[in-house]
């Protein structure tokens, strides 16, 4: 392989078929990842939960949620992690005891477990996601959650400081094609979507999507077997050029609240990679870059600093500077886009569907509960059936919006490609953007 690597360095445009005899292995990415391919149907879970026989599960869940939210205002990160984890272990166990869950096959049972995780984390999101907590507690926020926010701020600050750098500064082992920009932009967008979801699994899928897009790029560049030597620099570059808010908070949230058994293998690898890359950016300095022209680098560095100052000044003096620690999280170091407040980014399309489903069935959580504050309980079965139809329609509508978004992204990625072809690929690949990119790349080459 050493020889082949050398050959690739000399002729970066080598076509994929000739560069390596391992092409059999990863020439086509298999279409599934455990996170994406398994049965995942939250609505089905909610319907199961409405079954009267599931009442014990419902009561455990309600009791847990009530206790979590009322026993104390603010738990530490470790306490939260343990409480949520213990409840999941307990509840997953109970699923095996009560119908309709008891007789589900293992795939459907896993879906129910996912459902429980999504349900409770949807309900507890504002108590567990550091940027949301910040809104409620401000300076009184505990150390652990505050640390998330400080790291978010630090990352944004570094990103702004070094946003001008070229791929070469990050020591890619091979020359990269000029499409890197486009791919890393798309990967950055996918990564940004972590803020649109509350369930740890859904956030995780955004990360996997971003990584898949980057591997699509590596493959396109003739690096289908590219390992971490190629992937890590591309990932770091993507983080530097992207505008992902609250990245560290999101990564820590996934780590804390994704059930450990579900966060294994490939998912765990890519989560660790993004964590590693984000640490790298957060501690970035000249010594971690490959600088061949120090004078040129300094000139660009100064230029960027000046641009940053202008941007910061434009935002106005009302915002404290990032040096003031307690408010750092709300101060976008990169002031081109004002810091978004949690209420803005926690309610976005797909998760809104989840919230809608949960609230449509809020009677699930209200019936004979001591803290019931749901005024309109739905007793009538026909009304409940209407609710069912209504939420199905809502989910469908939001899914359509999401599909349109994927189509739009792909059109801009592949402007020369026939629209119908892109549509067909999307339909066939169920609008999973990473897989779609991969297929389209194969078709375009």
């Amino acid at each position: 392989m050493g020889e082949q690597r050398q050959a690739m360095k000399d002729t970066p445009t080598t076509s994929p078929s000739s560069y390596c005899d391992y092409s059999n292995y990863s020439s086509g990415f298999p279409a599934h990842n455990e996170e994406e391919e398994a049965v995942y149907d939250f609505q089905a879970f909610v319907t199961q939960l409405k079954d009267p026989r599931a009442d014990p599960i419902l009561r455990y869940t309600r009791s847990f949620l009530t206790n979590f939210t009322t026993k104390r205002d603010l738990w530490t990160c470790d306490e939260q992690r343990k409480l949520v984890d213990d409840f999941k272990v307990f509840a997953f166990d109970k699923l095996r005891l009560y119908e309709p869950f008891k007789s589900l096959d293992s795939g459907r049972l896993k879906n129910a477990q996912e459902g429980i995780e999504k349900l409770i984390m949807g309900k507890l999101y504002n108590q567990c996601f550091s940027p949301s907590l910040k809104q409620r507690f401000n300076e009184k926020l505990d150390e652990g959650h505050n640390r998330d926010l400080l790291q978010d701020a630090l990352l944004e600050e570094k990103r702004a400081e070094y946003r001008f750098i070229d791929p070469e500064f990050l020591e890619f082992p091979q020359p990269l094609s000029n499409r890197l920009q486009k791919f890393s932009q798309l990967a950055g967008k996918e990564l940004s979507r972590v803020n649109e979801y509350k369930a740890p699994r859904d956030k995780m899928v955004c990360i996997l999507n971003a990584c898949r897009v980057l591997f699509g790029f590596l493959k396109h560049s003739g690096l289908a077997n590219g390992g971490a030597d190629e992937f890590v620099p591309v990932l770091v570059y993507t983080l530097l050029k992207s505008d992902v808010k609250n990245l560290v908070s999101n990564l820590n949230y996934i780590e804390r609240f994704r059930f450990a058994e579900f966060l294994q293998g490939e998912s765990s690898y890519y989560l660790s990679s993004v964590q590693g890359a984000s640490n790298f950016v957060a501690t970035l300095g000249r010594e971690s870059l490959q600088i061949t022209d120090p004078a040129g680098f300094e000139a660009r560095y100064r230029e960027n600093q000046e641009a940053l100052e202008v941007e910061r000044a434009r935002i106005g003096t009302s915002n404290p500077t990032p040096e003031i620690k307690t408010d750092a999280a709300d101060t976008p170091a990169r002031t081109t886009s004002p810091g978004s407040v949690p209420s803005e980014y926690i309610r976005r399309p797909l998760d809104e569907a989840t919230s809608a489903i949960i609230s449509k069935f809020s009677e699930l959580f209200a019936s004979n509960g001591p803290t019931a504050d749901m005024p309109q309980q739905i007793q009538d079965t026909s009304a409940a059936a209407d609710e069912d139809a209504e939420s199905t329609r809502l989910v469908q509508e939001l899914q359509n919006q999401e599909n349109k978004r994927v189509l739009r992204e792909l059109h801009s990625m592949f402007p020369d490609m026939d629209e119908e072809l892109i549509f067909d690929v999307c339909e066939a690949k169920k609008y999973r953007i990473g897989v779609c990119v991969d297929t389209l790349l194969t078709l375009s080459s």
Partner: protein
Amino acid sequence: MLQFKLVLLGDSSVGKSSIVHRFVKDSFDEFRESTIGAAFLSQTVKLGKHDDVTIKFEIWDTAGQERYKSLAPMYYRNANAALIVYDVTQPGSLLKAQSWVEELKHKVGDQDLVICLVGNKLDLCAEDPNARQVDIDDAQAYAQEKHLLFHEVSAKTGVGVAQIFQEMGEKVYEQKTAESAAAAASRPRKAVNVELQRPSTNDSTTCCA
């Protein structure tokens, strides 16, 4: 199936990814669960020594460039095995490999971590006897002193590659079985102590103990 995490370390030019690709490619079975990209691969190994038990390695690749060294702890935490690769034609790469050995011994501190030192690019020595820059005896002596497994291989021709994973598989498996026998005796609970009240159900089991 028992799964083990294996982390891959070594300079960027030593061909560490190629060793794994060779291994995965030569293992003709269905267990190719890498779906996203080539930095994470998984592969099963059948252990002839242990009644043909099948185990699975989850192989975590790391970036070999010196500037990304600080990312390594994210990858090697909780690893069961580490494959540290150098290039037999580059003496500097052995030094780097040795520094990985030291780091793992210090930072992981897990007596059970199985480490295998691997010299790659044996094929270059076959082509040109003068290509070899790292004496096999020196590397082997070092491996012995540090209690590491040791192999010289060629990812290009495949020589020696399967043996690495076979031997590491056996070793992690033996340690795991010994360990679980010991753990069966006493299983300590985690330290954080938070308790919520028992839920208002008639079930006798507590919810959050």
